[in-house]
């Protein structure tokens, strides 16, 4: 089928990707495409009878990037394969790849029919929420490299990183939990059924029937006691070894006594036992555990440097470029870094203009220009043209990874223990043991049997089942409510810590300032014409020149200019500058000075004051960047570019200032000091020019003063401080992007809700305490019977589930109610 290009003035959309086609379109097989990439994907699908892809959604395609197969050469390396493959033997292998461009049902369909495009692929399965695909393939017929190239060529390029390994353990633990719940639920239902005759009055003379049922009950109790309760025993023993009485200690005591007394009674035919209560107890406890953990498929709270760096880098040997994994980099290797790529190892600049953006690592917001021969540290991002560097240190020896290893050593002691439940259980256990011993001793004077009944009965009924359920259900509900508002918390214990915070430390760059947005103002020298100081023609000319530059300030200018010229369709501005009379001639970019070009006969210069001419500009404000403009060598004015703070920052500070102390720690220079002093209360500590280690030290110092610190940061430069604080929150505008290790991830758009989140954490703890009170009431009722030595199975069987269900309903109900009141639901 032939295809041809044609110019068009009509507005149409690409059949494959749905983008608006402007200017030139490609016609193929009676359909329109925006570029040859889309057309090629269509051809591949057509030839392999996969056009059903287009029938599920309209324009489901993704515009593919240009694929040079040499980019994936490093996948042939054995070590790399070992780290990426799930499993591999002589013939078969399996790999799980993350494909960010999966977005619709057509994607699922196509990716699960991958075997039609490569005969070596046996099967593939997509996990939509995780945006992953697991491919099983025959190693003799195809290779990992071929599969990745195939995926990239149809627009589904996988994102290759080394950090997906931790997730496997999580799923194994969840699976084991599901087994336990299944068995506990099964035994719970059946043991209740088998206990009914006993409760509802089987003729006491029918002893065989009673025995049969009780033995069946015992049979059901065995797997529950040995398998389902296993975790509680291990946790209790671990706690006792450390000298801590955690919540699992009284639970373990209760379980042991329930089973022990039941077994004794059943085997000696003296009673019916409490097996149904045992099974019910375990069932509710395990349900609580499931509810407490919420995994976010796309997020990772524990990223380290391995997930920040790319997986491969281009090296040059004797003029030939090859791609190798970064772990293979040796001292003396020559590497090629392109625009927007991260430098993976400490290296010296050999060739090219380097402007390195270290904002993520040190917090400095402007890119730093480096000269030839200067050392460039790993972790920075190149903004500019292609540069070549000579590697000085291996990746694992670079300054960045050393720094990170240092931070890793600052492990958080608290982990996932709930402070609240541990405190309560300590007092609770002592009180109950004391009561049981006292009552038992009292009855010993009269009747041994009653004494034993009372002792064991008290310990059984006072089991903190309701206590152990209140916390997971309340905080689990809170976790989910937060998640819906894009505040992703790692574990319920974080919410408890949040409720106790009294000091908030902010990072500046990227956290309270918006990295993508800036406010730009044109200040003209001829102030009479200030409002429309530039004509539309002039603006388009400036846009044309600025578009050719890669400096971040030029990009900001382009965005602002295109909005002011044609606010609805910036792509049309692109075409205007592509044609006469707005084509740019003699474009030059002088690093550190500025850019210039000739448009329609006029010389446009943009840059520093000396380069473009500062004319009679007034005194330079400290917190702004200036791009001076001259047209035909006449200075016309300057663009003033200032940082924009996040929406709602003022309201956030205003709402929090009464309860919390603030501090701002920045890796950037002092230029924003005056503005920050206006925003924050007078007592706020403002520190600048800090290294990542400085930040860590300051947070540690605050903690030694007894403060409970919440650290909010966004980049690697905050990683140490985030670890050292009581709670660390990473703010990001793109949750799929890399974030440093933290306890919670907050989306930039939800930043203004921070006071509400803190307030609601306090409310949640209040709800937990309220439910404790209700749990105690139930315990009192049970104790009334137990103290008399009269705790019968039926009383226990009614009390336990009743209290559990009441607590579950109460906690989730109250949490939702208050969430609605706070506006979170």
């Amino acid at each position, binding site marked *: 089928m032939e295809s041809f290009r044609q110019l068009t003035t009509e507005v149409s959309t690409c059949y494959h990707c749905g983008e608006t086609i402007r200017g030139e379109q490609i016609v193929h097989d009676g359909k329109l495409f925006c570029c040859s990439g889309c057309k090629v994907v269509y051809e591949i699908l057509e030839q392999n009878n996969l056009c059903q892809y287009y029938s599920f959604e309209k324009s489901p395609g993704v515009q593919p990037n240009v694929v040079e197969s040499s980019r994936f050469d490093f996948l042939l390396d054995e070590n790399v394969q070992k780290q990426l493959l799930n499993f591999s033997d002589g013939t078969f292998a399996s790999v799980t790849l993350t494909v960010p461009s999966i977005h619709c049902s057509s994607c*699922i*369909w196509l990716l699960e029919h991958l075997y039609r495009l490569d005969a070596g692929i046996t099967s593939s399965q997509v*996990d939509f*929420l995780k945006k992953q695909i697991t491919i099983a393939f025959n190693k003799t017929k195809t290779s990992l490299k071929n599969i990745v190239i195939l995926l990239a060529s149809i627009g589904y390029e996988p994102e290759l990183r080394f950090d997906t390994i931790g997730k496997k353990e999580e799923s194994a633990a969840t699976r084991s939990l599901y087994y336990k719940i299944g*068995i506990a639920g099964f035994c719970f239902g059946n043991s209740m059924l088998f206990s009914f005759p006993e409760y509802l009055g089987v003729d006491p003379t029918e002893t*065989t029937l009673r025995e049969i049922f009780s033995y*069946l009950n015992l049979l059901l109790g065995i797997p529950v006691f040995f398998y389902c309760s296993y975790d509680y025993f291990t946790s209790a023993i671990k706690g006792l070894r450390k000298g801590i009485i955690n919540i699992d200690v009284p639970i373990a005591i209760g379980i042991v006594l329930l089973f022990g007394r039941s077994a004794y009674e059943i085997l000696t035919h003296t009673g019916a036992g409490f097996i149904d209560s045992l099974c019910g107890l375990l069932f509710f406890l395990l349900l609580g555990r499931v509810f407490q953990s919420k995994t976010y498929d796309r997020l990772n709270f524990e990223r380290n440097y391995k997930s920040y760096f790319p997986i491969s880098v281009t090296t040059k040997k004797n003029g030939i470029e090859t791609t190798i994994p970064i772990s293979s980099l040796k001292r003396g290797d020559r590497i090629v870094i392109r625009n927007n790529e991260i430098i993976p190892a400490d290296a010296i600049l050999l060739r090219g203009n380097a402007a390195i953006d270290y904002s993520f690592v040190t917090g400095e917001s402007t890119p730093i220009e480096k000269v030839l021969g200067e050392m460039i540290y790993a972790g920075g991002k190149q903004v500019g043209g292609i540069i070549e560097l000579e590697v000085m240190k291996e990746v694992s020896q670079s300054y960045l990874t050393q720094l990170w290893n240092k931070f890793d050593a600052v492990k958080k002691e608290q982990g996932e223990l709930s402070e609240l439940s541990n405190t309560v259980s300590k007092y609770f256990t002592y009180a109950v043991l004391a009561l049981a011993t006292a009552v038992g001793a009292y009855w010993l004077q009269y009747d041994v049997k009653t004494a034993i009944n009372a002792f064991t009965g008290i310990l059984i009924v006072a089991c903190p089942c309701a206590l152990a359920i209140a916390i997971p259900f309340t905080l689990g509900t809170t976790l989910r409510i937060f998640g819906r508002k894009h505040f992703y918390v790692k574990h319920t214990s974080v919410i408890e810590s949040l409720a106790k915070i009294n000091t908030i430390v902010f990072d500046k760059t990227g956290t309270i300032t918006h990295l993508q947005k800036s406010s730009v103002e044109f200040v003209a020298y001829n102030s009479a014409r200030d409002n429309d100081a530039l004509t539309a023609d002039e603006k388009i000319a400036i846009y044309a020149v600025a578009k050719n530059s890669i400096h971040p300030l030029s990009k900001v200018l382009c965005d602002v200019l295109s909005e002011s010229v044609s606010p609805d369709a910036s792509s049309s501005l692109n075409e205007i500058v592509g044609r006469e009379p707005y084509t740019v001639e003699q474009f030059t970019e002088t690093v550190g000075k500025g850019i210039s070009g000739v448009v329609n006969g006029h010389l446009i210069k943009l840059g520093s004051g000396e380069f473009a001419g500062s004319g009679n500009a007034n005194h330079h404000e400290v917190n702004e960047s200036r791009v001076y403009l001259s047209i035909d060598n006449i200075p016309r004015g300057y663009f003033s570019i200032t940082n924009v703070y996040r929406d709602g920052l003022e309201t956030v500070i205003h709402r929090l200032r009464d309860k919390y102390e603030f501090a701002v720690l920045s890796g950037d220079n002092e230029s924003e000091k005056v503005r920050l002093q206006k925003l924050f209360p007078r007592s706020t500590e403002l520190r600048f020019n800090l290294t990542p280690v400085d930040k860590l030290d300051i947070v540690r110092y605050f903690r030694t003063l007894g403060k409970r610190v919440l650290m909010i940061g966004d980049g690697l430069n905050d990683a140490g401080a985030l670890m050292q604080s009581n709670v660390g929150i990473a703010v990001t505008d793109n949750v799929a992007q890399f974030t440093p290790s933290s306890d919670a991830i907050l989306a930039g758009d939800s930043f203004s809700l921070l006071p509400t989140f803190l307030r609601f954490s306090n409310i949640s703890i209040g709800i937990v305490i309220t439910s404790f009170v209700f749990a105690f009431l139930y315990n009192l009722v049970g104790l009334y019977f137990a103290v008399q030595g009269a705790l019968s199975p039926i009383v226990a069987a009614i009390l336990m589930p009743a209290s559990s269900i009441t607590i579950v309903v109460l906690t989730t109900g109250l949490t939702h109610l208050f969430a609605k009141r706070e506006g979170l639901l």
Partner: protein
Amino acid sequence: MSVLALIISCSFVVAVGFLAAFLWAVKSGQYEDKYTPSVRILLDEEEQTKLQPQSDEISTSKHLTITKS
């Protein structure tokens, strides 16, 4: 009496069967991805559509050859 024993054992066996089915479902990984299967069942079978386009292609190419000559 014996009837009761029979009924109880039968129901128990059936119940155990269900438990076994649940455990097998968890083991085979059905609970790892709770979302994608819901999309997968809505994707159509291609068996029917395979035949039609081919016959269309044949007729159109025939048509083209006639007009060319």
